[in-house]
Structures are given as C-alpha cells and as structure tokens.
C-alpha cells in the first residue's frame, strides 16, 4: 500500500514538469546532436558503441589465435580470408599470432574495459545521479570522446599497414618495442601503437578531470558525499587513479620514442643478435640503458589500470545488487572506505608484476605485503555484496544475474591473486597460463560482466526509455557465464604444470600433453562464448530502435536520481528545476516501504500519512 502511494506522489511531481517539455527544447543540427555532441548522454552512447565495436574485434582476435593454439598446423581458410598474408594457406604465422595477442590485449584493456566501461557509465551516470545538468566542461568531455575515437582510428589503421601491427605484447617491453628489427610489427606498427596510446592517455585525462570536478562541484542541493550512490564513489576514485597514473605512462612512452628515433638508450643495453652487438643510430654499442626502468614506469600505470577497470564495475554491481534485492547496501561506509583503500594501495603494488625481473628480494617482500593487503578491502566488498543480497527479495533481471556473476568471478579470480601475489610462488607461476586465467577472470571477465550488467540495467536511460529483451538476456547470461568458466578454469591446471603463456605453439613440449585435448576444449568454449555475444548485440541494437518502451519513469523501483528524469531526457536532463535530495541512495525496505526515492523528504512522507523514522543519512 505504502509503496504505491510514494510512487504516485513521485510521478505526479515529475509529470507536472513534463507539461512544459517542449518549451525548453531548442533545435539541434544532426552534427551537434549525434556527432560532435556535448550532451553527456550522447557521449556515453558514443563511448559504448565504439567500445562494443572494439570488443567484437578484440574477442574475434582471441578466437583466431585460440584456433592456432588448439589445432597448430591445421589449415583454416577463414584465417586467410581475414588475415591475408599473416595466415598464408590458412595457417597463422608466428608474427601474425603475436600481433593478434598484442592487439587483443591492448584493445580489451584500454578501449573496451577502460573507455567502454568507465567512459560510458561515468558519462551517463555522474551528472544523472549527482543531479547536474551536464559535466563541468561539456566541451572537454566531447574532446575526450574524439581523442578516444582518434586513438582507435590510429590503432585500426595499424592493423592494415604492410609490416603489420605491433606484436611485442600489450605491455610493450623494450627491446621488442624499442628496436624496429625485433619483429615486423616493431617498426611502423609500434609507432602507430605509441601514437594511439598517447591519444588515449589524453582522452582519459580529459575525461578524468571532468568526472572529478563534476562529482565535487556540481551535486544537487542535499546531495552530500555520504549520500552518493556507490557508483559515483567508484567513478570518482577511478578518475583519480587515471589522472595520477596515466601521465606516468605518457612519460614512459616519451622515453621510448626517444630510444626508437633519437639514438638515446634509456631502456636499451647489451643486446646481441647472432653474436654481434647491436648499435644505436650513432653507431655505438648499446650499453647504458635499463629495460627494468621501463617496467617500473609502465607498471606504475599498469597496476592502477586494473583498478581503473574493476572499480566502475564494482560500483555498478553494488547499485544493481541493492536495487534488485530491495535491501540497503550492506556496510555503505565500509564500501566507500574499501574503494579508498584500494585506490591508495593500487599505487604501492606495481612491482609484483616484476618479481622475476631481478628485483631485490627484500624489495619484493614489501610489494608482497602491500599486494596481500589489497585482499582486505576486496574481501570486505565481497562480504558486503553477499550481505546485501542475503535474504533479499531478489528480482532476477538480466542485469542482476550479470551482477551476481560478477561477484562469483571476482571471488574465483581474486583467490588466485593471493597465489600470484607471493613472490616465492611467482617463480613457478610467472608467465604461465595460471596468470592468464587469473587476470582474465578477475579483470577481463569481471569487468566485462560489470559492463554488461550496467548496459542491461541502464539501457532505458541510454535509449529513450526502451528496454532490452529479457529472454535473450537470460540466454546470453547463462551461455556467457558457464562458457567463460569453461574457458579460463582449465587454464589454471595448464599453468600449474608450467605451460607458458604467449607461446605460438606447444606441440613440441611433450610434458604439456598430460591434459590431452584440454586446449581444444578451451577453444571450443571460446568460440561458443564469442557467438553468444551476437545475442547481446542483436538485442542491443534491435531494442535501441524497437524495444518495448517503459511505462513508468522508474522500471526497477530504484531510489536514485537518474530515474526521476523524463523518459526521453533532453540536454539538461531535467525539465524545470533539478530535484533536491533528502536521503541517501539506499533506503530500500525502510519502515516497510519497498523503496523511498532520494528526492522524497521525511516531511513529505508524513504529510501523506506514511510512517517513517528519522533517516540517519
């Protein structure tokens, strides 16, 4: 009873504003509305659709190199169709294989899980959930997307140049990345790669500056920091991580450029090819550099980068779990503090990627300590998610399933992180499939599941109140969830026997044959999961145009502000004044009410004769 009353009241208020809808609209040209748009909602869509494009390309690459791993030497005509001279006669060449692995990693980490995830949802949700008309600087926000687009364009062009794209791994360690003679892709391909990454860094910085400024300065009246939904906290700390760590990657790239083109030797030392020492542009033997220096600079970004990927997913999952269990988030303050703790610790653990690079073992032990410390805030978050859905009145929407899937994956992948964080165990496990399995589950899949959960949940806010098809969503979830575990779970076993990652072919190592056709099983699962994603993309584009329109403003009975904006919000988000906020974002099940929107004050409730206790938030 009480619930419907609140909803009624809630919609009447908004409907009143709706009447004036048309007056506030000014005409926009096609270009200013769809292309060089400064509306954060359109920019979010641009990030998302570009991200989906890159994710299909990136995952397709992984399917192609999985074919080579499962059936080395077998001919696949499709490979030659797609890759041309890199798979002459349908057999993938080693250089082609390494380029596929490299570009798969780069594209998935940066273009899909950084830009596609935090670019999309920071843009969509920060103004809508904070109660702002747009970002602090819509213009810089637009630039942020177009820098990302250009980064993608440069990377895309590099796939078609004669010497092929870069093939030295997504971490671009020198000397592979510094010496053009190391690999066909290390010449022009690497130059394109650096250019693309530099554009991407600028894009991330512009975006991050905007996100932080907007969260701190443009919240609506009554929206104190401790009333913010956890999504916003997560985006906020993600942006801080990006703003502080991406510039360091830029400086490592600048030094790399000098090594490649100007004859310096920041990273190069004592390289012998076929017995002859390598010389630089000036004709001297290369001796002065330190490849480990690059690793330090790279991982100072590279490690925060994995939290840049996972924090937004964590934030969205928290929000989706609370909304669909109709229970307040368990331990809100602990959640905020654990995000903060993860952000701080993220900067203190980078050398755990370098345990076997010759790092001083005493230094390593400090990094082991900090690495294992990250397990504490991570575990707090996991327990709080489980506490949130515990005995909740759960509504299993596709978004909710993906959010629960995220928690499952985060636990599975997080546990193997404890193994890898030990420098002693890392001696055996480093650069094996165990590592591949670990980071794909905890970062790749979990980040991807967070992204998908977010798309299913906020789709009506992206596409004018249209909903995605649930049945397709359920099939998509179950195939992806089961299939993903089938891909990456067996990789742990491979890794524990020492199967090295990144190898072109394992057929000459008899010791790795003990698992029989396991690698074939993995590849088949990968192909199935890849094709299941078409269900998503069909659902996505069909629903964006023809999907069922939602009938109320608030389809998930959520408390947050984005569900008070009109079904088809214009630029400016709210018609009439921006709603004020009177409570925190998680008043679910309070005093017997299913949910109380943030915009409803205790006085309004009492005026309607509804029972409500003073809110502590």
């Amino acid at each position, binding site marked *: 009873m009480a619930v419907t009353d609140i909803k009624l009241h809630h919609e009447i208020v908004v409907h009143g504003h709706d009447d004036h809808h048309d007056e506030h609209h000014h005409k926009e040209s096609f270009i200013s509305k769809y292309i060089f748009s400064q509306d954060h909602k359109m920019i979010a869509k641009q990030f998302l659709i570009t991200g989906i494009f890159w994710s299909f390309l990136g995952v397709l690459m992984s399917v192609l190199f999985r074919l080579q791993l499962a059936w080395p030497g077998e001919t696949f005509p499709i490979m030659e169709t797609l890759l041309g001279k890199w798979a002459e006669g349908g057999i993938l060449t080693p250089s082609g294989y390494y380029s596929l692995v490299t570009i798969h990693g780069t594209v998935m980490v940066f273009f899909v899980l950084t830009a596609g995830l935090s670019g999309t949802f920071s843009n969509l949700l920060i103004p809508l959930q904070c109660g702002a008309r747009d970002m602090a600087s819509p213009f810089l926000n637009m630039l942020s997307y177009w820098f990302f687009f250009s980064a993608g364009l440069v990377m895309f062009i590099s796939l078609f140049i004669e010497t092929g794209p870069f093939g030295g791994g997504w971490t671009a360690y020198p000397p592979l990345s510094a010496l053009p003679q190391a690999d066909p892709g290390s010449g022009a391909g690497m130059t394109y790669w650096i250019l693309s990454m530099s554009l991407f860094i600028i894009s991330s910085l512009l975006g991050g500056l905007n996100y932080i*400024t907007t969260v701190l300065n443009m919240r609506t009246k009554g929206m104190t920091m401790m009333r913010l939904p956890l999504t916003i906290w997560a985006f906020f700390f993600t942006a801080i991580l990006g703003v502080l760590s991406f510039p360091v990657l830029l400086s490592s790239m600048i030094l790399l450029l000098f090594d490649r083109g100007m004859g310096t030797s920041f990273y190069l030392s004592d390289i012998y090819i076929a017995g002859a020492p390598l010389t630089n542009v000036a004709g001297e033997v290369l001796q002065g550099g330190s490849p480990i220096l690059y690793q330090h600079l790279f991982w100072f970004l590279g490690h925060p980068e994995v939290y840049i990927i996972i924090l937004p997913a964590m934030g969205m999952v928290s929000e989706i779990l609370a909304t669909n269990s109709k229970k307040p988030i368990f331990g809100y303050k602990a959640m905020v503090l654990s995000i903060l703790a993860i952000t701080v610790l993220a900067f203190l653990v980078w050398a755990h990627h370098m345990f076997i690079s010759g790092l001083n073992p005493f230094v390593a032990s400090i990094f082991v300590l900090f690495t294992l410390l990250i397990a504490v805030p991570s575990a707090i978050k996991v327990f709080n998610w489980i506490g949130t859905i515990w005995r909740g009145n759960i509504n299993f929407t596709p978004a909710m399933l993906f959010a629960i899937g995220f928690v499952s994956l985060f636990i599975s992948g997080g546990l193997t992180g404890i193994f890898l964080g030990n420098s002693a165990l890392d001696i055996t496990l480093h650069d094996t499939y165990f590592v591949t399995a670990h980071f794909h589950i905890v970062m790749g899949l979990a980040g991807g599941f967070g992204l998908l959960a977010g798309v299913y949940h906020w789709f009506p806010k992206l596409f004018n109140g249209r909903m995605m098809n649930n049945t397709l969503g359920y099939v998509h979830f179950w195939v992806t969830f089961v299939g993903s575990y089938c891909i990456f779970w067996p990789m742990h076993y491979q890794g524990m026997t020492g199967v090295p990652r990144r190898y072109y072919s394992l057929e000459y190592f008899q010791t790795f044959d003990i698992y029989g056709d396991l690698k074939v099983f993995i590849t088949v699962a990968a192909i199935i999961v890849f094709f299941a994603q078409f269900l998503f993309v069909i659902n996505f584009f069909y629903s964006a145009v023809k999907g069922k329109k939602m009938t109320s403003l608030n389809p998930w009975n959520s408390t947050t502000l984005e569900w008070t904006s009109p079904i088809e919000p214009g630029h400016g988000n709210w018609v009439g004044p921006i709603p004020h906020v009177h409570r925190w974002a998680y008043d679910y099940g309070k005093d017997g009410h299913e949910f109380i929107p943030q915009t409803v004050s205790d006085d309004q409730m009492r005026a309607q004769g509804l029972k409500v206790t003073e809110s502590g938030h």
Partner: protein
Amino acid sequence: MSTISVKKRTPNIHPKKFGLWLGLGSIIMMFAGLTSAFIVRQAQGNWTPYKLPDLFWASTIVILLSSLTLIVGERAIKKGDSLLYRRMVGLTFLLGIGFAVLQYYGWLALASFGIILQGNDPSGAFLYVISGIHVVHVLAGLLFLAVFYFKTFKKTDAAEQLINDMKPEKFLGIELLSTYWHFVGVLWLYLFFFFQYYQ
C-alpha cells in the same frame, strides 16, 4: 516544499579552476615519473657526471621575473588599469620567450661539454628530455599569453563593456592563466634544483 534543513555547502572553488589544479596534478605526476626514473637510473652507475651550465641560473631568474610581471598585470586589471595590464602581459610573454631561448643556449653549452642526447650514457639525455618537456609546457603558456595580449586590443562598445564588467567570472581567464604560468615557473625551479643536486 521541504522544510528539512540541509547542511549548507561551503562556497566552492570555480569548477574550471578546480579542473586546472587537477590537470596540474597530472603534470606533476608526469615529472615525478621522469625525475624518479632519473634517480633510479643514476643509481645503477655508468653515468657521466657534468656541471650544469651557468646559463640555467639566468633562465631561472628570467622565469621567476616573468611570474612577478604577471602578478603585477593581474593586480592592474583588477584595479581597472588596462594599459598597465597590457604592458605586463606583453612583458611576461617576452620574458617567457627569453626563458625558452636561454634554455636552448643552455643545452648548446651542455653539448659543448660533450654531454649529448645520443649515446650510451643517458645522464645528458635525461636532462635534455626532462627540460625539453618542461619547455613544451612553457610554450603552451606562451600561446595563451599571446592570445590574452591581443585580446586587450579588441574594441568593445560601451554596452558590451558594461555587460562584461557585470560578469562574476570576468577575471577567470587571467586567473587560470596566471595559475598555470606560476606553476610552470615553480616546476622549473624544482627541476633546476633537482638537476643541481643530482648533477
């Protein structure tokens, strides 16, 4: 409608100023990365020591002077003295050019000692690259100084002037610019003492 009293928020810094400070933070991180790379690499040996050319003292004084002239200019425009403002912005621009030229001659002096960019020993390369990236940041500031200088010649009619004067953010542009300019000055001061100490 509501009578619940909400805790009043403290007056906020302008979002653009705040954004600029964040941007400066990311520039700091970039130079922190570069200078810590310098320290780490130096500790590994195979490092030719050198004496920093005296010209860098001159360039340091020039860039500090340019901060001073910009402070005078900013005060002038806030008091309504647009002629002094124009002269001071122009002078700051010239001093900035002077800094960049002095840095260039400083590099030439260093090269004449045999410390060059290329080669196996990156002690010189670090200095060239780090101070080079700093000069790029100075050049970006110079671009804006030039824009602000030419803007002072723009004719505005009385009505337009009145509207401009009433804007609460009429000094925002120059405030942002001077924050940035002082920042690159202080950044050079840090780099200068860093190079002096670790040379």
